[in-house]
């Protein structure tokens, strides 16, 4: 029986597994994707490395493969219970694992960016387009419009141009005065990420050539069966309409918390990044002493910090397993913590420059794409019912009950409760996440071997 189960083989998961392996701890890594790398290093083994980050990812992935621990790709985790007990399926067969410790390295997802028409074919996330570039080597056929804000949007625009694509323009939702607010964080940010900042400036320089509509405050996607055009308005009240069959949207990334929520870990509201995060201690331990979280699944700091965070979690697990004394663990952790503090300083700069925008959600917006519940239905359900939280409004409207289990509407539901009831997001909380975390067939359930 494996001592440690790592869920996720992105930068945090791979770094943690390698570190645990070196410490002589038996580790199994599962990942729902077919190859290691996570989102940031997707298909890293089958494409050319283009940047320093890609080279880091390729080297880390090669070391992870060579370490020879148990790695189970294409394996979905669908339930995590106290114990811990973890249920996974691979190729139609389910099994239960009972490791001593679980490390969740499940990363981030893009923040839902709802607006009227965002469910139309032709509206996709920037992250999706980036995955298409990395994993399928495909790019938009025509000059493409991007909408939103954040480093990933600029990075993809840059990668698309490098790959031979064309940008039509950007509906930029960044607020006025971001650079002024961010400048205070610049000195500390330079220490950690001057290369990133230089790269970012390069992307911004290139972006001057594109049509950029600044301070966009509302977007509406128009079309009957698919996207035909998009309307926008700006902070100064100007409006316009662009013809588009593809619109790539992005409003930053947030931790993927379905696994930690379902495992019963305690969470807190990050008011700067406007998202929930699992509460972890200085060794990445959650409120359950057998469950650890590393990487962007704990707090958004990016891939480079995720590697360090994975190493820190490995130290934490070795310490909790009695394989490393408290003093040795603290000594080994100190330089990693300093690195993560620098990464956090860099993040403060990025947060000031690209704060989450969360455009107003008009009544016509399909907040829950699966069950097709509009913002108006949610507001109507909430008005005059202060006792209703996310779970109450879910029962009243079915929002969050579909196959995505609130991954695309959960944060918006919390926002709407905040808006209608005037409560604090920390108190409102998130939808209660129930198993199975990913849908599984009855056949898969029936195949369950209760002894792993």
């Amino acid at each position, binding site marked *: 029986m494996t001592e440690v189960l790592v869920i996720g083989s992105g930068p945090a998961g791979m770094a943690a597994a390698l570190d645990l392996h070196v410490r002589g701890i038996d580790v199994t890594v599962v990942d*729902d*994707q*077919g190859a290691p790398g996570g*989102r940031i290093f997707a298909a890293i*083994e*089958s*494409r*050319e490395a283009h940047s320093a980050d890609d080279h880091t990812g390729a080297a880390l992935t090669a070391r992870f493969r060579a370490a020879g621990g148990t790695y189970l790709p294409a394996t979905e985790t669908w339930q995590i219970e106290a114990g811990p007990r973890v249920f996974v399926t691979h190729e139609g067969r389910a099994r239960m694992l009972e490791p001593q410790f679980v490390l969740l390295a499940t990363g981030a*997802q*893009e923040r839902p960016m709802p607006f009227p028409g965002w*469910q*139309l*074919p*032709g*509206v*996709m*996330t920037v*992250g*999706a*387009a980036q*995955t*298409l570039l990395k*994993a*399928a*080597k*495909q*790019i*938009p*056929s*025509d000059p493409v419009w991007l909408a939103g804000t954040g480093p990933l949007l600029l990075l993809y625009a840059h990668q698309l141009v490098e*790959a*031979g694509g064309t940008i039509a323009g950007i509906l930029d939702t960044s607020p006025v005065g971001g650079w002024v607010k961010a400048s205070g964080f610049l000195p500390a940010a330079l220490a950690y990420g001057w290369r990133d900042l230089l790269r970012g400036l390069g992307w911004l320089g290139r972006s001057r050539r594109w049509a950029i509509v600044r301070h966009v405050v509302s977007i509406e996607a128009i079309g*009957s*069966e*698919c996207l035909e055009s998009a309307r926008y308005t700006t902070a100064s009240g100007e409006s316009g309409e662009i013809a588009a*069959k*593809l619109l790539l949207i992005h409003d930053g990334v947030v931790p*993927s918390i379905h696994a930690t929520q379902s495992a019963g870990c305690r969470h807190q509201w990050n008011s700067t990044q406007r998202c929930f995060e699992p509460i972890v201690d200085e060794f990445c331990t959650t409120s359950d002493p057998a469950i650890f979280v590393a990487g962007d699944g704990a707090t958004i700091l990016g891939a480079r910090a995720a590697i360090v965070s994975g190493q820190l979690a490995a130290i934490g697990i070795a310490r909790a397993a009695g394989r490393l004394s408290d003093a040795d663990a603290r000594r080994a952790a100190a330089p990693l913590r300093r690195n993560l503090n620098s990464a956090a300083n860099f993040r403060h700069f990025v947060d000031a420059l690209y704060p989450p925008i969360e455009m107003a959600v008009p009544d016509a917006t399909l907040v829950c*794409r*699966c*069950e*097709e519940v509009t913002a108006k239905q949610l507001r109507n359900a909430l008005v005059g019912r202060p006792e209703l939280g996310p779970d109450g409004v879910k029962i009243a409207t079915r929002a969050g009950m*579909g*196959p*995505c289990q609130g*991954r*695309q509407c959960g944060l918006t539901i919390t926002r709407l409760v905040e808006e209608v009831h005037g409560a604090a997001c920390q108190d409102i909380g998130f939808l209660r996440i129930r198993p199975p975390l*990913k*849908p599984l*067939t009855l056949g898969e359930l029936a195949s369950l071997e209760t002894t792993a």
Partner: protein
Amino acid sequence: MKRKTEMFRRINVGGGQGKPVTLSIDGVSVAAEEGEPVAAILLRTPPFTCRRTPVGGMARAPFCMMGACFECLVEIDGETSMRSCMRPAREGMAVVRQLGRPDLLAELNR
């Protein structure tokens, strides 16, 4: 309404090129590369959608490409509601777009 022009095109960016494979989408043969996500192929194949929703019959297409939005559900080799973004293309794979609510009687008779 069928879209006449494509949304995405493939590029050659170097790196390992996968083996060419042929799979079928709604019975029509489609050329692809082994291992690429099925959702990517759907986005290159008219009408560039993957399903109609069981709730309101709306057309939907892949949205997040990372298994989190469940928009790209299709039938693959007889199994319904598979996330096509999570499934690598294989030779002979049979992909069927899902049109609204499943007809349980038709399923039974199959």
